[in-house]
């Protein structure tokens, strides 16, 4: 467990920079994480982030297919917003856990 300061907020995250408590997330923090990933946030980005957080709170497993069928973006657009590993990048910005397999 690490602590780091982003946009003036002290947040807890794991070794890979994923927030460990969604309650510590706010938009300013998200903008800073996005910058580290080389992403400038637009309205479309925020819509996707909102959707992912909503799914996470409902304890629904998030998959790229689900995002593609969300009505917000299709998978191609998801890639354009968050290039290279969109699900893991978007999850990081959304303050939710990285998608993992069993090992």
């Amino acid at each position, binding site marked *: 467990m690490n602590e780091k300061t982003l946009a003036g907020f002290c947040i807890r995250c794991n070794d890979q920079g994923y927030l460990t408590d969604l309650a510590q997330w706010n938009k300013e923090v998200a903008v800073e994480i996005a910058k580290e990933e080389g992403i400038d946030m637009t309205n479309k980005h925020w819509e996707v982030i909102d959707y992912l957080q909503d799914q996470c709170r409902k304890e629904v497993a998030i998959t790229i297919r689900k995002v593609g069928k969300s009505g917000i973006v299709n998978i191609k657009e998801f890639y354009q917003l968050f290039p290279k590993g969109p699900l893991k990048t978007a999850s990081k910005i959304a303050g939710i856990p990285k998608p993992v397999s*069993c*090992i």
Partner: protein
Amino acid sequence: MKNLLILGAGTSGTMMSNALRKALPQGQWNISIVDFEDTHYYQPGFLFLPFDLYTPKQLKRDIKDFIPKGVNLIQQKIDRIEKEKNMVLLQNGENIFYDILVIATGCNIAPEEIEGMQGPSWHKTIFDFYTFEGAKNLRDKLKHWEGGKLVVHISEMPIKCPVAPLEFAFLCDSFFADKKMRDKVEITYVTPMSGAFTKPVATKELSYLLEQKNIKIVPDFNIEKVDTDNNKIIDYGGQEVEYDLLVTVPTNMGDEMTLRSGFGDELNYVPTNKFTLQSKVKENIFVIGDATDLPASKAGSVAHFQSDTLTENIQLFIAGKPLKESFDGHSNCFIETGNGKALLIDFNYDQEPVKGTFPIPGIGPLRLLKESRINHLGKRAFKWIYWNILITGKPIPFVSSRMKIAGKEINTSE
């Protein structure tokens, strides 16, 4: 008389038919189970069949052999569930009414979900090993294959037995080394995840395996299509991987019956309470095994651990008592690493796989998250356990439904 109906006579359904027949009084409850298939396959064996380590015959039994006396097997296809009428419609037009329904319809591969996958190259240069036919055809292909670029690939998550593709890659390394042609085969492992290992302890303990076996990794690859003219797979980000032989795990999906019934999710899985196994569809519908949408592994061991929770909760439901939130996501699997060795992992919703001893804390004899010969023997012995203990609904000695903390090296400071 009341009626309990089970849909699906695979691992989960068969286990439940045995457990519930013992648990529910004969004079009060009729139990029926519906499955169209004639054959019960030992699915863990599909991993070994391509390498000729099991014969096809060892993996097949008659589905009837494991349905207990006092349970009525109906060999028909299911059309849909009419949940408001507490009724299941069969494709032959018959209706079955139930008081309690258990959905155990599992999941299957859906290669048609990926553009180009199921064309003329299917089972010629593109293979699955998640079906009996796929594994058998791949065995025939590997017998005469002269080498080249072998790509082991996962289309999208979740999949049944999530470590099987990695085990397949490990076994390929041994297989081609034994055939004295390892230098002619380039093995690449392509995954939509961030790596072959995603959990911190497993990543630290096991990453050496890929290097040791000279397996190249392509992570973060979300397949868009297969270009069969040029023998390459292409992802949504434009990344391309060439193959001579593609061994893929296609998209896995639940039975289309759930779609026709109007309650499956986007992959036809049934929304289920992750602790009680009651469906979120209706209170008298329960779900077990691969058919659920739970964030647990889709695996036989998981279904086995779930069967204890489900058997108890069905009895509580009948008695009008609150259900127990007792399923903890417990999963236990052997992972073949090739050269006669295997790993064992034991984990649940909250606890990632760590090192330790299993099933007897401090003794073993099996070792968690560490390669050993005895783990491999455990995996091979599992076929006997499956046919004789697991699906007959008996408990496995020393192995509890809930994951044990004792015997595990858990670093609590993190």
